[in-house]
């Protein structure tokens, strides 16, 4: 933590950046912080409660954040995949952000929790995560725990669902999706959902019904999954923030599996690796086409 604060203080006092995006102790627990003065650097923290993916704040379509000017962002290895995604999709120029990598051995699910990081409390997405540091970082600080072994619980749930008859899957998803109130928190926190005007907000034509009934919810979650296919960085934010507790990660993970199996693509922290949807191979498998 001292190393992180020292670095942030130096970047701010030397004028390399105008602000540092990191984490601080909030009233309920760890939360995103926006440090703009060298003295403020002492409020920065990093521990297993720092679950938020701060890359969402780099979106060029957030005018109030853009006013901060050049920023440095504290970056977990998984967050590096999101930043790589934004660079890959030409949303942010690499030289306009300083990346302070923190070594990470896993986080818990709830930033407000006081639970220690254990096999029982670790966030599901951290199970089997091989990355201890992000390769995209300009500076890397801290030390990392050993990490946690896979497989994740949701991988098991996906297998269980896949093995069930289609009617069971339909019933499961209807019981989950009908809880959705369409607050669109899943979209707002997603670092890869950066459109100026979302398809779901467009009315001419209205492709996705705005009503939070099961039919509108189905259209929304299908669209969300398709738009994130091969782009989802598995930060788990959508599922964490869902106020109704819908297991959205199951859908994005399922699609990630499909993309990985069919197109040998995994979310990468290398912006030069092309995303699988938006490119193609002449010999892509097409067993499902008559």
């Amino acid at each position, binding site marked *: 933590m001292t190393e992180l604060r020292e670095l942030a203080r130096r970047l701010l006092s030397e004028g390399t950046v105008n602000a540092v995006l990191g984490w601080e102790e909030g009233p*309920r627990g760890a*939360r995103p912080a*926006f440090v703009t003065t060298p003295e403020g650097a002492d409020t920065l923290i990093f521990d297993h409660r720092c679950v938020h993916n701060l890359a969402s704040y780099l979106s060029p379509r957030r*005018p109030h954040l853009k*006013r901060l000017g050049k920023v440095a962002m504290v970056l977990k290895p998984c967050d590096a995949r999101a930043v790589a995604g934004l660079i890959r999709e030409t949303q942010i120029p690499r030289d306009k952000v300083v990346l302070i990598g923190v070594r990470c051995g896993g986080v818990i699910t709830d930033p407000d929790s006081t639970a220690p990081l254990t096999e029982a409390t670790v966030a599901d997405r951290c199970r089997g995560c091989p990355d201890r540091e992000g390769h995209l970082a300009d500076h890397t600080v801290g030390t990392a725990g050993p990490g946690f072994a896979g497989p994740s619980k949701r991988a098991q749930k996906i297998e269980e669902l896949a093995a069930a008859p289609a009617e069971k899957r339909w019933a499961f998803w209807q019981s989950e999706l009908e809880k959705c109130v*369409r607050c669109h928190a899943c979209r707002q926190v997603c670092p890869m959902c950066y459109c100026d005007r979302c398809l779901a907000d467009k009315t001419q034509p209205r492709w996705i019904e705005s*009503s939070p009934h099961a039919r509108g919810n189905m259209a929304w979650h299908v669209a969300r999954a398709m738009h994130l296919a091969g782009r989802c960085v598995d930060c788990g934010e959508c599922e*964490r923030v869902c106020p109704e*507790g819908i*297991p959205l990660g199951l859908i994005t993970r399922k699609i990630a599996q499909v993309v990985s199996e069919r197109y040998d693509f995994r979310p990468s922290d290398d912006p030069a690796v092309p995303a699988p949807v938006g490119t193609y191979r002449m010999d892509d498998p097409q067993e499902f086409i008559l």
Partner: protein
Amino acid sequence: MSTTTFIRTEDLKGLVADLRAAGIGVAGPARTSDGAVDYRSINAFDDVVLDGQPRNSLKQFFLPPTEPLFKYQRKGSDVAILEISTTFPPRVILGARPCDAAAVDVLDKVMNWDYTDEPWFGRRAATTIVTFACPGGDRSCFCTSVGLAPDATRGSDLLLAPAGDGYVVEIVTEKGQALVTANAKRFGAGAGVEATQAYRDKARASVEGHVPARPDVIRAWVDAHFEDPFWAEISLRCHGCGGCAAACPTCHCFDIVDEPETLTEGTRRRNWDTCQTSVFTAHASGHNPRNDQCGRCRQRVNHKFAIYPARFNDILCTGCGRCARTCPAGQDVTEILTRIVAMATGQGGAA
């Protein structure tokens, strides 16, 4: 009207069974499929989970996330409107939290302001709210700072507080009296209100001091600081997701949409909406008068603590703390209000 009676826990179980047998719907805080607690229909009192604040408020019972207003059918050049009934069968909500019950009463004012909202009052008339005095909250609770309390009766028809082998029942309204009268065999003599005092004091102590109880000071500061840099500062972490508004017992904005189902038929529905999104204020021209998150964060505080008080002499907040608990980025209303009071009383400024 404030008379009291008593109900034993056994009789409470019997009351739920009696109501269900009579075809009256009963809802209360119960376990959801993912292990959380939320208000939903129950079949027995044993389903009720009293520890932990329900995930959503009671708002959904009176203003559902989506509801049809009418159906339409085009016939040649005419349009036929199929009305949807705004009378509802009776139901009882058992185990409401005082902050959630109060919110319904707060909202009655706006729902009966420029016109009477028929679906809202249809559901209000059909519903008897039986509130359980709150056992106490966490650090995001601040009902006592907005004129309420863990044992406030506002919005409730009956208020129950535990004592001995049952609950002391405060009869707050005529609707509450009617429920007691109709099920008289379940109620009887027992401990008096004084037996619940220790419980009430403990609950109050757990929520006090999180926000200075100075709504007048907050209102005056918010009114006078529309352009204050404070708003820009707090808006930095806001994602504009509207999770706070969805969880809020008093956020009541809605959007109205026509949804065609075939070429000639469709439904006009109203859906929850929130001032935290950019499309909320977007004009058809493309102009957006509230075009960044700074203005949206201000609007949320402004509407609750200045605009609604100016129009209805009531605070559009019951201190339930759900917005702080649900915020994915740790935005905390108790912190915001505390800082406003500090700034207004000269004990601090925008950092």
